[in-house]
């Protein structure tokens, strides 16, 4: 039996680091379905969860995997699943259920080339818009994009913390490259790892309203068996959790679901800036592509071009204000991502007419090289 936190220096891949991050964060339930290139997350969880009295179950498909983690979450535990594009598509209806029932959970997508079966063993970042809009209806979720195995560990813990704090599904939008890349991963002492516990209700059980907002607009969440007799439904519901088919109830519920994220952007959004202060040209990137972007910035600087990087650690909610502010003082934006233009559109939308926005994209299957970024910068500016 291994301890919960494997403190020390490891040489492991991103998928395994993700699993270790989950265990360190207190995850004790994993609903699995194998899919390349995310399978190693499940394999590691199957090995490690019994060490922490956790449950691993391999379900019959990704719909069941995703649904099982919601059921488990309502018993009061922290839950996760991991998948890739095709499985992510299957999970989407249940993501909506998680959003509307405010069930905390972490969903890892180790992205591969799509659409359809696509490139199972090769990386891409083409599910970024699906993460935001893949389930029907309006909603806000949180999506995080790790750039390294170390971040697969660190940000998986962050994902659990944000999920518990805001009672929202949090996506870890990794990719095949980061998932399968082995690097040094430092796992700190258990006491140095900050984890967030779910806020439970207090007060009279017979007067409890499961969807009455508490701090930050987020309601406290009881577990099955606590005696609150909650009713939880995917239908539009009032604060009691009861279905009400009315325009006003829909409006109130939606406003709160959206505003608990939109009113807390400062707490949620994480970015990293590199040589941005004096930059004329801003590269926006995330995940594995941000590694390309760092090198491209250095190369451009050596050529005397003032390029800086805004790395998105959280991609959703999108840092609209940051892009808008930057757009007022820079010559333009270059988004580097392994898709045919997804986050670049967001950059374009926020920059508006203030500054042009370009894409260095790729259909998937390989990483983008710094030369491609430099080439575009020279052509466009």
């Amino acid at each position: 039996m291994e301890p919960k936190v494997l403190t020390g220096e490891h040489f492991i891949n991103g998928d395994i680091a993700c699993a270790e991050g989950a265990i360190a964060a207190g995850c004790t339930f994993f609903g699995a379905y194998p899919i390349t290139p995310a399978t190693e997350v499940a394999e590691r969880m199957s090995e490690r969860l019994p060490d922490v009295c956790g449950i691993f179950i391999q379900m019959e498909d990704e719909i069941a995997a995703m649904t099982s983690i919601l059921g488990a979450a309502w018993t009061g535990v922290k839950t996760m699943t991991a998948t890739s594009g095709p499985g992510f598509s299957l999970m989407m209806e249940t993501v909506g259920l998680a959003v509307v029932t405010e069930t905390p959970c972490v969903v890892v997508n180790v992205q591969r080339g799509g659409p359809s079966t696509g490139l199972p063993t090769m990386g891409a970042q083409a599910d970024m818009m699906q993460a935001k809009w893949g389930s029907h209806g309006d909603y806000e979720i949180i999506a995080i994009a790790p750039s390294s195995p170390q971040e697969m560990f660190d940000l998986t813990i962050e994902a659990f913390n944000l999920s518990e704090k805001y009672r929202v599904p949090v996506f870890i939008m990794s990719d095949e490259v980061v998932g399968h890349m082995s690097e040094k991963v430092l796992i700190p002492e258990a006491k140095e790892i900050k984890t967030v516990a779910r806020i439970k209700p207090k007060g009279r059980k017979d007067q409890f309203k499961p969807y009455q907002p508490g701090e930050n607009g987020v309601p406290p969440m009881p577990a099955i068996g606590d005696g609150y007799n909650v009713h939880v439904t995917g239908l539009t519901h009032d604060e009691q959790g009861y279905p009400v088919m009315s325009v006003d109830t829909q409006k109130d519920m939606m406003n709160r679901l959206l505003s608990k994220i939109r009113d807390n952007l400062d707490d949620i959004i994480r970015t990293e800036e590199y040589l941005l202060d004096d930059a004329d040209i801003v590269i926006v990137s995330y995940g594995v592509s941000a590694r390309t972007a760092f090198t491209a910035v250095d190369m451009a600087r050596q050529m005397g071009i003032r390029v800086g990087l805004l790395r998105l650690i959280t991609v959703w909610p999108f840092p609209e204000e940051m892009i808008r502010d930057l757009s007022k003082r820079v010559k333009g934006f270059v988004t580097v991502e392994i898709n045919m233009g997804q986050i670049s559109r967001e950059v374009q939308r926020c920059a508006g007419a203030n500054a042009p926005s370009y894409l260095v994209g790729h259909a998937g299957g390989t990483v983008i090289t710094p030369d491609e970024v430099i080439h575009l910068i020279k052509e466009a500016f």
Partner: protein
Amino acid sequence: MAKAKANQKVHPLEELIRTERLPHIWCSGCGVGTVFSACLAAIQETGIDHKKFSMVSGIGCSGRGAGYVKLDSFHTTHGRSIPFATGIKMANPSLNVIVFSGDGDLFAIGGNHFIHAARRNMDITVICINNFIYGMTGGQVAATTPHMDRSATTPYGNPEMPFNLPLMAYASGATYVARWTMIHSRDLTDSFVEAINHRGFSFIEVLSPCPINYGRRNKIKSLDMLKLFADNTIIKNNADPAELDIDFKKGVVLGKFVDIDKPTPDENYEKVCMMR
């Protein structure tokens, strides 16, 4: 006031019902309410602390059951009540998890989850109200609609064959399998009690009328359907599951068909994985 209250008649199941949500949505002549009452009566009869129960429903008329029961109750997505219940049970094996849903939800869109939960002998109780039709959406053909019956999407008669649900449950590995109709409410309650106390996957199919969306199109009046349930059924415990096709002309077999004891996945997981 106190005296008036003492004299007030209280429904025996009141403590298990969200009375503030009444009236319910079920049509007059519908059988879901009767099955629901039998389920609540069974919960009471087990004597188990109500806090140790959870009810999970999918989508459809029967799927509204979870919305009326005063337990921790979940109204999930279409077809997914069983994997949701699986998550609850595995994460907290001390809970009694009841899936209360309909034939369309459990056996068309959710069929794959049913067979896998049965295969695992997942320790949950699945109550399927079979009304032979998609009621909530207005009477479309289901995986349980008898051959040649009419529905909103089989206006010339159903060209397909229906499932034999107890056979499927048995073949998939269910360790408790029974079938009743909603008029056999005493047997039904007894069966639910047994199923709740049963270790492993228990499945009860309950035949139930949908006068509005099934009876009307097939020219079976509400009372006539109940008469079929009373007169054209045979109680035959331990009957061969392969001989349980539903044909009211020949007589529909009711009873308990399977009741065997096998370890459950939560027990096995603890033994195999945790105590290694």
